[in-house]
């Protein structure tokens, strides 16, 4: 695909061809390639059920990665997201068990998530503390706080109505997938077509220049974190409603998983179009790889090495592709 697509992109014509040379295309191509190859080895991999399960089980990561992409594009990072999701899931589950109305149960994590992240955003934007410091601190605070409050007591006996994941639109499309797709598309459109969306790129690219253009980097960062919190809330909800119990602890390494997804799919095309589509595709790709490695009977000892290697290959392929395009002008 490359030469053709790249030359088309350079000459500035052919929307479709230009898309073919994009990060999203690379990811989509990888997703399909893996599906086909693994499917040839073990046709069960291609069963609709398996493919849906892969997306379904990881939709929450994709949603969180959408928010993370915004944060990273704005020139920041958030390490606290895993802990926050743990906390929000617990809050939501506790409300459900306490018998609160479902609408409250579903909305509270979104609101609390947005509040916590807005607070962090304010400290980062208005007090000038680097995001890695603030979110690293918050990671500890949320994690310790969650354990202190719950003592790790699992939340069980969740009411049936709580389980969003069991709801299927038209009896087929599972709710988490629908939410993931909607969140991705809305965020992608928002980033491309809203002034604030573009301001994120400006702020991340050159905050001082952004200020001189009349964009407020501070306000932008605040909005980014607020939205990120909202997405974290949605992610927490998907996370919490998946199983009949909620662990009330911080899911191990979730922040790294989310950052990896954003980085593999999103951040690398800073300034490009539809970054968040990339991060969602990356989430699916990473999840697909994890599942595929089991399907093709990779030794369980080596699974993580192969997984890491494949992530590295994807990332490097993307960098090389972009480099080539840049040289081409």
């Amino acid at each position, binding site marked *: 695909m490359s030469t053709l697509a790249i030359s088309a992109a350079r000459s*500035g014509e052919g929307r479709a061809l230009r898309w073919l040379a994009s990060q999203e295309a690379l990811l989509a191509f990888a997703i399909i390639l893996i599906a086909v190859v693994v499917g040839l080895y073990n046709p069960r991999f291609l069963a609709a059920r398996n493919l849906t399960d892969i997306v379904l089980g990881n939709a929450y990561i994709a949603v969180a990665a959408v928010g993370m992409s915004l944060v990273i594009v704005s020139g920041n990072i958030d390490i606290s997201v895993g802990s926050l999701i743990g906390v929000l899931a617990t809050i939501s589950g506790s409300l459900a068990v306490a018998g609160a109305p479902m609408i409250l149960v579903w909305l509270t994590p979104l609101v609390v998530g947005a509040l916590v992240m807005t607070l962090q955003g304010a400290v980062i934007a208005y007090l000038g503390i680097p995001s890695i410091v603030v979110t690293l601190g918050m990671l500890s605070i949320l994690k310790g706080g969650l354990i202190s409050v719950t003592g790790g007591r699992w939340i069980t006996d969740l009411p049936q109505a709580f389980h969003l994941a069991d709801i299927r639109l038209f009896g087929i499309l599972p709710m988490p997938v629908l939410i993931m797709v909607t969140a991705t598309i809305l965020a992608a459109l928002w980033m*491309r*077509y*809203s*002034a604030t*969306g*573009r*301001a994120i*790129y*400006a702020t991340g*690219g*050159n905050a*001082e*220049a*952004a*200020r*001189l*253009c*009349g*964009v*407020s980097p501070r306000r932008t960062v605040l909005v980014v974190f607020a939205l990120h919190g909202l997405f974290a809330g949605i992610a927490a909800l998907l996370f919490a409603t998946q199983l009949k119990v909620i662990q009330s602890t911080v899911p191990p390494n979730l922040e790294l998983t989310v950052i990896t997804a954003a980085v593999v799919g999103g951040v690398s095309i*800073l*300034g490009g179009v539809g970054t968040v589509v990339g991060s969602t595709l990356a989430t699916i790709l990473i999840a697909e790889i994890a599942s595929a490695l089991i399907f093709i009977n990779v030794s369980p000892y080596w699974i993580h090495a192969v997984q890491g290697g494949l992530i590295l290959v994807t990332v490097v392929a993307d960098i090389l592709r972009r480099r080539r395009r*840049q040289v081409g*002008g």
Partner: protein
Amino acid sequence: MSEAGSTVLRVGAPAPPLLAVSGIEKSFPGVRALSNVSFEVAPGEVHALLGENGAGKSTLIKIISGVYQPGAGTIHVDGQPLRFSSPDDARRAGIATIYQELLLFRDLSVAENVFMGHAPRSRGGWLDWKAMTAKTEALLASLEITDLAPRRIVGSLSVGNRQRVEILRALSQDARLLIMDEPTAALTEYDVTRLFDLVRRLKSRGAGIIYISHRMDEIFQLADRVTVLRDGAHVGTRKVAETSSAELVQMMVGRQIESLFPKVDVPIGMPVLEVRDLVRRPLTKGISLTVRAGEIVGLAGLVGSGRSELAQTIFGATPAESGQILISGQPVQIRSPGAARALGIAYVPEDRATQGLVRPMTVRENLSLASLGRVARFGFIDSTAETRMAEAGVNRFRVRAGSIEQVVGRLSGGNQQKIVLGKWLANEPKVLVLDEPTRGIDVGAKAEIHRLMCQLAAQGLAILMISSELPEVLGMSDRVLVMREGRLVAEFARVQATPEAVGAAMMGSHGADAGRAA
């Protein structure tokens, strides 16, 4: 058009001036940048600001654009007192500014850079990308720029083209007051002409323009009035028609400048730098040239002709793909700037903010950066030696800095340029490649730098000077080379190099290549 062009200020008319600043004061820690500055801009007026490096011009316009808050003083727009607490306030009041430091988004496209912060919206408040591209194209067309696509990513543009983007950005705002802080520093004459046409058109529509430049001829071409600053104080305002270059210089520097181009003939020695068939795609397409000891070779060309690329290829920043470089007759491999430096090649880059200086570091640290080996023993820096080196550099170039511990980013543009030069000369190079060496430098300092170049040549340095200022090329060079589209197209000895002949070679008109034979 001609009527509009000769718009006369209606002195004493009831209409208030477009902009009136009075009693402006501004201090930075340790520096009093402005004290009691007042001036006015009328609608349809081009008002030039003139002053030495560090006189406070940029600071003044940053106050007018809301970047800085003044310590004291008032700003009136249309007679209304206004306080700008952010650049956005100023923009809303109809003020658009091209800042001296290029402030761009490297990862975004030209169109987005132009419209960042005020992009066209469709119904519902969403960005209208089509309109954005179309408007950018229209702006490009109005400046007759054909080699810049709205979709190009700014990070891949040359300095000249980035400057054009800055200009487009300011023009896109339909401002009533356009402020330009040395917009032509990175442009060639061709672009300057386009820009001036445009400024005149804006002026005819009644916009006011504040114009800062160190190029005296531009001020006489364009401006109606000129205000001179010295050491942060207002020296005087003159009508351009009623003053002379000599008077303005006198006001600026408080003394006479004898000659801007004090070129002296020195004996020319052996070839020091020889380049043979140097190729580095896409822009260096087989270049051969020779620079001898004591010789100053000028390299002229339009924006995008590939001069900077050539210089950077010689310097090893973008190593050559094929071809040969000889230093003092010895073939050498230059694969990195470090290697070039070790061979005695110095390169003063065109973009001092990103390539020349480490802005958050001090004057001392910047001055020693290219010659750390000289002040270090076994890798350990000898701070006394370093201080001595830095002080020598500051004194030699008369840098206006509080101390050698001052952060370079806070020096005025011209003084920053002196630091870049000083940094390289501290390394005592054999070959000096200067890319726009006097860009943004005031007349006094410019004369100094030129004098220095002559001194260095007299000491046997081989100097290759890239400049987009034709008078400088003609005034300083022993030989003039002309580049066009990645190739050398003409060569003139000093006596043959007339503005017409060189200009024609740059543009590629007929008959120019004849010069090559000479």
